[in-house]
């Protein structure tokens, strides 16, 4: 099997036993990129020379007989909204098309310290706002399973790169489902960790109380390995949780006997594709056959998650994106001769339609006279949504839902109707509002397109999520399916 097809844990064994070098792995991945990138368009930037130099560093270390960690010498792609020192970080926006950060995001630094080989930065919906990667100001990324369809969003580039074997793993960010939904559409594993478990220092902020960095991988084992490196307290991030991170690979136990799984009825209502429902029901039966106890239950405020999100996320975004004024960095319109026109022209040209829509919505929701009716109301309903989960986790170990109500949709199908586009994240958004972890794993194909199963856990309940997801994976073959490119 070609090296680019392999997982982190397989490649680590090959490196340790000196059967392959990191340089060979890295070159294999670049050969794959050369074969398929014209079709997929997952990358905004490729860092070939830097990657090969890093690979050589790791190979030298191995040659000296030094121990290497599980990520050393393995190619990774970083979503282009995480700062990389000396390397363009664009957020797929005209606003930051020329921005070269003077520092690394904490996750990037942690990966570099672990010997990871960064091969490039991946495409996204501009400033991570979107559900299809059609909102990138540069070009859309295509779904490797069907090039006429979207890869999901906003981390579509990161998900597509893993699905197309253009990288071994990648990082994405998830504000309302932006890791799990593209993982589902592209047939890979995607984890949104508990809020605060992975440092957001150096992640370009969209909605600060919701954003969370997490991994895309080819299997659950790899996701656990990545989390072992990127999770943990960071004094540079005031929202970072001070928590002793366990060794997540110890949670990879093939056993769900006695695990209680809640199936919220609100996630199985109208709008869900029949094939998706069927595959999720098959997964529930599989868990029951493996000894888990599955039970229908209720998360009564689920219907309010989307309206809450579409007040809170734009409100936070309108504040976070106020920093793009054309002064310190990024795009500036040069035609204005006074400062206010410069701000207005810079922002109007620098931001795309979806970003402007959210800034407008957020500014309106926070403006005088509307704050209580929209923003404060949404914060109160967020409490009710969180309380639903708190109550559910008194009884259940995990909650199981579809990741998305549908498989990947076609380009342009929803781009003219924002409300319809927003609905594609309906199964993932409540998890961000509650700050809890969620993982999407492949659970089958519907008419040749991947379907994702979402498992939701208690705060800091990643160990249980890994155990349940791993058991499912060990007893099915869905994660082995590959697109033909």
């Amino acid at each position: 099997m070609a090296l680019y097809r392999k997982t982190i844990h397989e490649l680590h064994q090959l490196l340790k036993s000196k059967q392959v070098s990191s340089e060979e792995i890295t070159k294999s991945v670049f050969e794959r990129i050369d074969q398929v990138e014209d079709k997929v368009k997952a990358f905004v930037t490729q860092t070939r020379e830097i990657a090969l130099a890093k690979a050589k560093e790791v190979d030298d270390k191995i040659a000296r007989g030094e121990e290497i960690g599980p990520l050393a010498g393995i190619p990774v792609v970083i979503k282009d909204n995480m700062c990389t020192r000396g390397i363009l970080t664009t957020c797929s926006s005209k606003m930051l098309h020329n921005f070269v950060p003077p520092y690394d995001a904490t996750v990037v630094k942690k990966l570099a310290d672990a010997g990871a080989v960064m091969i490039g930065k991946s495409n996204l919906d501009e400033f991570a706002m979107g559900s299809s990667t059609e909102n990138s100001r540069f070009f859309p990324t295509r779904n490797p399973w069907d090039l006429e369809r979207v890869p999901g969003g906003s981390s579509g580039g990161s998900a597509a790169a893993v699905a197309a074997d253009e990288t071994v793993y990648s990082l994405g960010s998830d504000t309302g489902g932006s890791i799990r939904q593209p993982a589902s559409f592209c047939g890979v594993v995607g984890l949104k960790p508990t809020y605060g478990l992975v440092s957001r220092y150096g992640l370009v902020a969209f909605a600060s109380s919701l954003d969370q960095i997490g991994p895309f991988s080819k299997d659950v084992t790899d996701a656990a390995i990545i989390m072992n490196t990127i999770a943990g307290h960071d004094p540079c991030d005031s929202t970072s949780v001070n928590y002793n991170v366990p060794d997540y690979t110890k949670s990879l136990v093939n056993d769900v006997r006695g695990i209680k799984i809640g199936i919220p009825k609100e996630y199985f209502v109208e709008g869900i594709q029949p094939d998706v429902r069927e595959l999720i029901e098959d997964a529930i039966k599989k868990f029951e056959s493996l000894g888990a106890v599955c039970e229908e239950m209720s998360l009564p405020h689920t219907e309010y998650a989307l309206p809450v999100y579409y007040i809170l996320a734009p409100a936070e975004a309108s504040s976070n994106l106020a920093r793009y004024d054309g002064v310190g960095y990024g795009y500036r319109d040069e035609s204005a001769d006074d400062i206010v026109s410069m701000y207005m022209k810079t922002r109007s040209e620098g931001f795309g339609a979806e970003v402007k829509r959210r800034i407008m919505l957020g500014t309106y929701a926070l403006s005088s006279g509307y704050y209580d009716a929209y923003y404060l109301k949404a914060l109160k309903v967020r409490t009710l949504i969180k309380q639903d989960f708190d109550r559910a986790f008194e009884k259940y170990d995990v909650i199981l839902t579809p990741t998305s109500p549908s498989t990947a949709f076609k380009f342009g199908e929803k781009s003219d109707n924002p409300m319809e586009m927003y609905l594609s994240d309906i199964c993932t958004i409540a998890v961000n509002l509650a700050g809890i972890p969620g993982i999407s794993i492949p659970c089958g194909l519907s008419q040749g397109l991947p379907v994702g199963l979402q498992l939701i856990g208690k705060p800091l309940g990643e160990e249980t999520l890994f155990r349940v997801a791993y058991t499912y994976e060990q007893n099915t073959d869905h994660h082995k399916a590959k697109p033909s490119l």
Partner: protein
Amino acid sequence: MLTKAQVEHVALLARLELTEEEKEMYASQLNDILNHVEALNKLDTTDIPPTAHVLPLRNVMREDKVCEHLPNEEALANAPAREDGYFKVPKIV
């Protein structure tokens, strides 16, 4: 119902310059979204505390001492315009 005048006011607050076409489009799209948000009014939230953040946040303090900072050259490296070690902007007054 969000009017075109309100859209213009919000755009000014957000420092966005919109074309006539954009004003029409955003008025219509924002109204659709706000109509959807109206669903929240079905809930009585009088006694519900707001959740701005899922974590109990505390200020992160450090000792008040001079530490290494970004060199001037690096801080200005991304500036669209600069002069004599400063960010340069159009005249303000």
